[in-house]
């Protein structure tokens, strides 16, 4: 019908984010973790400004957004290489999201591998324990990023997916006890043999989530070129579950990694790597204390068990390493004075199959995000 005056599609003010001032399009954030670690027996102890991460975002348009995270590890950096301390400065994430549809978008740049829970969600207040767990450092080597393109979306309200094609790992850096961890490429990743990865998350209710994720990629990638001796590929399957019942929280994750062609890699690299973890926590902060400045405070006890075997399958038994099979019990507490600041403490009983085993460890941490 001819409306007089004109229909509102014309009279309503248009929202156009590109006309916003630069400071309205920029968003800043970040997180940090300060740790104290003490090993029993050896008595080794350290105070470590483990991570300081700055988030910078920018809206080019309502549907094109930049996300970036720049990480500074251990708070000190000198010249190059590990000889002057193991501090690192790196871009952990740098990608553009193109929100093409209501329910999907395209992502391009440096993204986080969508494997497990902690790799993508690792602000200190979101996980238990001062240090990331054995599972989340060995089997899923967090923080694991790659460079490439992908897409994300929702099939239904409770079903989300993401899928990527991008850089893989450098197989020549795999090892018998650290598994794939050192294969992560930090700069100018070779794209000789790229990798696909993806994740499907199902949240049947607001408090329960189940995720399956996977990875498949070739390992013949050097920093800038190819590795003549390496002829192998890696497949990862990972399942994770988290949930809450009243004040109890549960988390579990399991993953297997198959390395096809492990014999072309370093001695002792397993044909299969397995790992799993289970965690339970209890939020204990009484409601009656939540007044005044403590209105948003919370506290919890937790216990977690991690088990990892980087040589779950090994072609040559003579290369077996006693330190490949490890487990870790972590008992600890988290206290959030406000939801985005956390103070943590835990005690870890660690062991492997070697005669001397692994030292027990006490950790304290202070973390925040903003």
């Amino acid at each position, binding site marked *: 019908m001819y409306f007089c005056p004109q229909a509102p599609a014309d009279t309503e003010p248009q929202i156009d984010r590109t006309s916003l001032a630069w400071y309205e399009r920029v968003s800043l954030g970040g997180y940090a973790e300060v740790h104290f670690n003490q090993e029993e027996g050896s008595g080794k102890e350290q105070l470590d400004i483990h991570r300081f991460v700055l988030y910078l975002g920018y809206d080019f348009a309502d549907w094109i957004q930049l996300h970036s995270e720049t990480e500074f590890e251990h708070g000190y950096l000198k010249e190059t290489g590990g000889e002057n301390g193991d501090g690192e400065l790196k871009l952990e994430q740098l990608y553009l999201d193109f929100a093409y549809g209501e329910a999907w978008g395209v992502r391009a740049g440096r993204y986080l591998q969508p494997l497990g829970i902690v790799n993508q969600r690792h602000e200190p207040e979101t996980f238990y324990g001062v240090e990331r767990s054995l599972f989340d450092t060995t089997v899923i080597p967090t923080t694991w990023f790659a460079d490439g393109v992908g897409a994300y979306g929702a099939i*239904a309200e409770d079903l989300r997916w993401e899928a990527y094609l991008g850089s893989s790992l450098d197989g020549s850096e795999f090892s018998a006890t650290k598994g794939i961890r050192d294969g992560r490429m930090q700069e100018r990743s070779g794209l000789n043999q790229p990798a696909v990865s993806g994740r499907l998350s199902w949240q049947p209710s607001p408090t329960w989530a189940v995720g399956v994720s996977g990875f498949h990629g070739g390992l013949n990638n050097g920093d800038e070129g190819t590795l003549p001796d390496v002829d192998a590929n890696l497949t990862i399957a990972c399942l994770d579950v988290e949930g809450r019942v009243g004040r109890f929280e549960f988390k579990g994750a399991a993953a297997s990694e198959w390395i096809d062609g492990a014999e072309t890699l370093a001695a002792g690299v397993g044909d299969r790597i397995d790992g799993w973890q289970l965690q339970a926590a209890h939020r204990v902060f009484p409601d009656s204390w939540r007044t005044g400045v403590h209105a948003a405070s919370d506290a919890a006890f937790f216990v977690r068990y991690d088990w990892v075997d980087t040589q779950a399958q090994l072609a040559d038994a003579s290369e077996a390493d006693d330190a490949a099979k490890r487990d870790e019990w972590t008992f600890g507490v988290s206290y959030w004075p406000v939801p985005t600041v956390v103070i943590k403490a835990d005690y870890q009983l660690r062991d492997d199959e070697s005669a001397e085993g692994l030292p027990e460890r006490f950790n304290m941490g202070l973390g925040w995000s903003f």
Partner: protein
Amino acid sequence: MSIPRYLPVCLTLALLGAGQPVVASTLASSTQACGVDVSDALLRTFYPAMTGRSPIVLPRTTAKRGRTVTTEVHGWQVVQADQTLGFVLVDEAMGKSRPITWLLAVDADLKVLGIEILAYRESHGGEVKRRDWRAQFRGAHSASPLQHGRDIDNIAGATISCRSITSGVRANLALLAQAKQTGQLSSVIPAVTAPPDLDVDEGSYAFRSQVVMGTLLTVLVDDEPQQALQASTIVFEEVRRWERILSERDPTSELSQWLQSAKGAATNSATADLLSMLRAARRLHLETEGACDATIGPLVRAWREADARAEAPTVQALDQARQACGWQWYEEDTAAGTWRVLQPAASLDFGGLAKGWALDRAAEKLRQAGLTRVLLDFGGQMLALDPPRGQAGWTVTPASGVADGQPFTLAHGSVAVSGDDERGLRIDGQRISHILDPRTGTPVEPRAPVLIWARSALDADAWSTALYIMGPAAIPLLEARGHRAQQPRP
């Protein structure tokens, strides 16, 4: 369920009459840029009132670093039959880095009826849109603790958004309670509410609504939630696509650019989409003997400009505008495949056709996707594809005074209502109707609502306009084309 048949006029009135464009922009920010996605039937009852006016502006004071900061929260009182049903507030909460526009609806006792996420702008944390998460707030009031992570479940991965919305609900409930105590809520002007012309029985079907082309579009699907989501997404994307193609305001829209280039010289730049729309509009102009005319752009503009000055357009201005209308200015050379527009002042207004056209195109997309147990309700104009399982059709009930007021079933076709009620406009103190007669250039006298049936939504849309303009003279014309009309029972 209520359908804001006159929503465009209501909103226009709100903009012009109430003179509060700033207030309107609160809603516009969600409707235009991101699409209000109202998934709750109850809130849709509130929707006509929300778009009508925004009479509630509540100052919310928060302490920040020793300073007090006051922000204005805009809201609506929802009145039906002189009874306050409740209140709606639209507000923004902060996500990780971008604002989330959300809505709180409470009943007359200020108990939460529901919350809606109107616009979510981040690629992470969108889980706050979950219906089961939002449902936790139902029944809450200002004395409810509403502690995030305790009374209100957190969603892992969407913590910041969940926390932010939760504290927003708490703050706005307190604000409403305070406003009620100080008597601010009793003195507000009742919002405009219009009874719907046509109402479809929602039954237990899945549905989703968004505001597109300034009108509430509801997609009703008799299928699993996943298929319903897919179907509604297809519809919203297609209708929005047409909204962009046909936008006269946007100089970069396909329509604007084509018109610009066709005024210079013969051009073949029209896309297949635009060509099909142009030809359909020209055909309907012929069929309706000039009553439905998309070339009326210059006249609409003349009236709009006059309206802005609150006076009638001058005879001279109207004459000039009328001369720039008409399909004679639009030359199609079918042999060369080009168009030329000979009149520099010509402009097209698909206001009378765009909704019907977009509905038909969306229906086409649904058929391609194999999703056909769907009814589309575009501000009271309905287009039904296949009927729901085990039914002869979708049950539609006209308001009293529309046709015979009896419910009927609809499948494989479209219905629209042509008519008017008291919400006209005033110029020079005289009440005028809001529909222009392209043949005379002046507004048409209000007419009683008539129900139109047609196979396609485009025909229903065009003929409802034609019938309104021509009156009963249009009935034999439309019946000759296989459509039907039903006048109100005397």
